């Protein structure tokens, strides 16, 4: 090992993931220790010298690996291909580590990971079941792999983006080569008429195919808009470019002083570059959302008639099937609990923060999390007919309604296109009939007016701001998924917040109580061996407690190790009835101590609410949890308007009422019970760790744990809207000077190019100011 590598990792950082640890410990958890051993054993320790992922991001996830064999595709006899989405693939070193580790497997034909899409494509020879071993290897290295879902594929394999890149390549080539000819015409005043004609036709030879091919994305969109009897920016762009091409052709025909192919091709190249940037920024957010959703996807364990377990996809389950739900696992279908009573966390479906005991025979909606031992359930509806499907249909309707939103750019285009048409036609008629010029000569100032006003500044004015804002928000952990999200977010006038999982973390946290640190340490060591949510919360409260090697889990009851017992009241011989989540601990016959848990407020919830108020937005809580719990949170945050015990329909009707009263509510939620309200709201934000349906219903998805990102995003959206308005106003002001000059026939192609470039640069520079975060985010 080189000297550099020893210096690179400070003694207080975990040797694998870089999270801070207290010396002499070298690792933050057993997972990291195992992963570090594995990496060094494979001779891949160069990874640690090059790692640039954020500290702690590589900590192995204790979640059980998802079965992958079913997702492998046969590519021939004994040849398999598997596409995986690998979360935690954060840096080039991670890609390298994964590829190298897998390439070392003797039967692996190829392993290729893409950092942008987090997609890992594997080809191997042998048995299909190797997929599980590969996933286990990835898991030990600290990467979680799930099958590459169709949604991921859609987000990653983007034919439209590739079309834009191709068009940009062609436009850039065309623009530069036309310029080669045009510059010669501009400076060559002593050029002979024949040479000039040659130059003109050469420019047409390059320019016309370029305009035909590179302009396709605009023509298609313009045609679609015209068919729907609307106008948009693309109509203006298409009109300007095509008219310029026609006028230039006519100028080449009569061997006029200039052709304008350079202007048309450069305009296309500039606009395509802007559009590509816009798409890339949004595509990145879309991929991140698809990644979050893929991590929630999974299979269901079906119990056969003979009691055999079988991993199947959710879609394959029919009503009447019996399924097994492990401790801590989420129910994906509507089902009835069989056999034994259980303990279920219904936060996602009802918003209750405390797990509720469920009697055998009770119905459970999809989304409930099993907090007790493994449970057997009978499915009552297949995925396509269940409660989730109904909500999903609601979301589709809402998405359609939001698609009809008229953006600022569209509004500008509606005024702009007719105005420009009138000006251009007037100029043409004025020069032709009024001044008695030939029709070809009259065409020049008319089209010059079209291309000078054109769209460049105006078409870049809004996208440039959007790109900068979406990119800045992405880096702050806010994913913008809808193209109109920022405009709607900027216009909201009240905020409705869910409680569980939104204002609170949604996971239990240890409350202060009467125990000694030694007892906590002993109990946490025991809890470390369990996946139960409460045990994990206890282990998290004392992260440096070593695992008790002799710990043994009694599913649904607790843990034992020697004389120590940790678990439910009955398990530890305590008679106490209470509904707060609690773990009891006793060792060697000592008096049992209680560790109580509660769903805690997010650390920055109060600051976030304060920031929302400073933005002038009234805040209310709309929760499905018990009124008492909601009142406590509302009092703590100083929110006067709150409603508890709200079923999903009540949430929906509250939002509907607000909209009918003329408000533009912003809904923030995380659960399946919020999805309907999110879809109906004027703008919607999915809280950190939200359910997939809620994420699908939202315009923005918060990926950081910090709730302060929410007011930050609203501030950024307002700023973006203000800057977009400034840019549009600026472009219009520019036109006030440029249009009269063009109409008067004073503008040459060189002048037009200068105007176009300078106005574009001005609006782009102004757009860059959108990067600056709100004062409280700094």
């Amino acid at each position, binding site marked *: 090992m080189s000297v550099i590598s020893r210096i690179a990792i400070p003694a207080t950082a975990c040797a694998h993931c870089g999270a801070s640890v207290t010396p002499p410990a070298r690792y933050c958890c057993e997972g990291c220790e195992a992963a570090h051993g594995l990496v060094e054993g494979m001779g891949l320790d*160069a990874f640690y010298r090059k790692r640039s992922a954020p500290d702690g991001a590589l900590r192995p996830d204790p979640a059980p690996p998802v079965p992958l064999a079913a997702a492998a595709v046969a590519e021939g006899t004994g040849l398999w291909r598997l596409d995986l989405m690998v979360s935690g693939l954060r840096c080039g070193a991670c890609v390298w580590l994964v590829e190298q580790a897998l390439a070392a497997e003797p039967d692996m034909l190829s392993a290729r990971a893409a950092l942008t899409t987090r997609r890992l494509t594997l080809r191997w020879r042998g048995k299909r079941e190797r997929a599980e071993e590969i996933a286990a290897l990835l898991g030990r290295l600290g990467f979680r792999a799930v099958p590459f879902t169709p949604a991921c594929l859609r987000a990653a394999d983007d034919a439209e983006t*590739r079309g834009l890149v191709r068009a940009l390549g062609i436009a850039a080539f065309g623009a530069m080569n036309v310029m080669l000819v045009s510059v010669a015409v501009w400076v060559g005043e002593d050029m002979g008429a024949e040479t000039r004609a040659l130059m003109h036709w050469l420019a047409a030879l390059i320019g016309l195919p370029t305009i035909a091919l590179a302009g396709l994305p605009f023509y298609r969109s313009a045609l679609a808009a015209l068919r729907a009897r609307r106008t948009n920016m693309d109509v203006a762009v298409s009109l300007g470019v095509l008219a310029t091409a026609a006028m230039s052709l006519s100028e080449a025909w009569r061997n006029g002083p200039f052709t304008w192919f350079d202007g048309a091709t450069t305009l296309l190249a500039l606009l395509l570059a802007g559009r590509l940037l816009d798409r890339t920024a949004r595509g990145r957010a879309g991929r991140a959302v698809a990644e979050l959703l893929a991590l929630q996807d999974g299979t269901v364990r079906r119990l056969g008639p003979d009691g055999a377990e079988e991993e199947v996809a959710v879609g394959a389950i029919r009503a009447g099937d019996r399924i097994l739900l492990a401790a801590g696992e989420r129910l994906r279908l509507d089902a009835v609990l069989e056999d034994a009573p259980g303990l279920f966390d219904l936060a996602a479906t009802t918003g209750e923060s405390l797990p509720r005991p469920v009697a055998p025979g009770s119905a459970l909606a999809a989304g409930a999390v099993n907090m007790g031992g493994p449970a057997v359930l009978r499915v009552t509806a297949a995925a396509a007919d269940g409660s989730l499907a109904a909500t999903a249909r609601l979301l589709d309707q809402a998405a359609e309604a939001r698609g009809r939103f008229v953006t600022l750019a569209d509004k500008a285009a509606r005024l702009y296109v007719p105005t420009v048409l009138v000006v251009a036609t007037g100029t043409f008629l004025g020069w032709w009939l009024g001044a008695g010029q030939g029709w070809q000569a009259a065409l020049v100032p008319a089209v010059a007016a079209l291309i000078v006003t054109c769209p460049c500044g105006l078409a870049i004015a809004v996208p440039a701001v959007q790109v900068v804002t979406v990119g800045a928000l992405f880096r702050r952990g806010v994913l913008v998924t809808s193209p109109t999200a920022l405009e709607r977010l900027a216009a909201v006038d009240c905020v409705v917040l869910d409680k569980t999982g939104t204002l609170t973390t949604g996971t239990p946290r240890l409350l202060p109580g009467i125990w000694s640190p030694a007892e906590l340490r002993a109990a946490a060591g025991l809890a470390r061996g369990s996946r139960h949510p409460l045990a994990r919360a206890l282990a998290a409260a004392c992260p440096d407690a070593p695992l008790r090697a002799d710990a043994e889990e009694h599913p649904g009851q607790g843990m034992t190790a020697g004389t120590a017992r940790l678990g439910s009241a009955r398990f530890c011989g305590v008679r106490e009835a209470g509904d707060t989540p609690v773990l009891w601990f006793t060792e060697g016959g000592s008096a049992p101590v209680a560790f109580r848990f509660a769903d805690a407020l997010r650390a920055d919830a109060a600051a976030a609410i304060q920031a929302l108020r400073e933005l002038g937005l009234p805040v209310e809580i709309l929760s499905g949890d018990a009124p008492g719990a909601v009142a406590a949170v509302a009092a703590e945050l100083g929110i006067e308007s709150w409603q508890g015990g709200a079923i999903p329909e009540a949430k929906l009707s509250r939002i509907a009422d607000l909209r009918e009263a003329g408000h533009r509510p912003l809904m923030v939620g995380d659960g399946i019970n919020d999805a309907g309200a999110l879809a109906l709201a004027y703008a919607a934000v999915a809280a950190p760790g939200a359910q997939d349906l809620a994420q699908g219903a939202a315009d923005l998805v918060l990926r950081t744990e910090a709730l302060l990102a929410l007011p930050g995003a609203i501030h950024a959206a307002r700023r973006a809207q203000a800057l977009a308005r400034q840019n549009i106003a600026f472009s219009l002001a520019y036109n006030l000077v440029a249009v009269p000059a063009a109409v008067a026939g004073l503008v040459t192609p060189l002048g037009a190019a200068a105007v176009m470039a300078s106005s574009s640069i001005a609006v782009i520079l102004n757009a860059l100011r959108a990067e600056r975060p709100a004062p409280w985010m700094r």
Partner: protein
Amino acid sequence: MDALILLVPVALALGLLGLGGFLWALRAGQYEDLDGAATRILFDDQTAERTNRS
């Protein structure tokens, strides 16, 4: 003027060569993972080295 007859086609041919190369690279999927490609060159392939050692 004589120089133009030679130089203009040469310039165009070179440009078209570049455009062809770009379109080929696009079709071959070389623009699929820009972030990965940027960092990939920083790492050595260790598979061969390890095979020799073991």
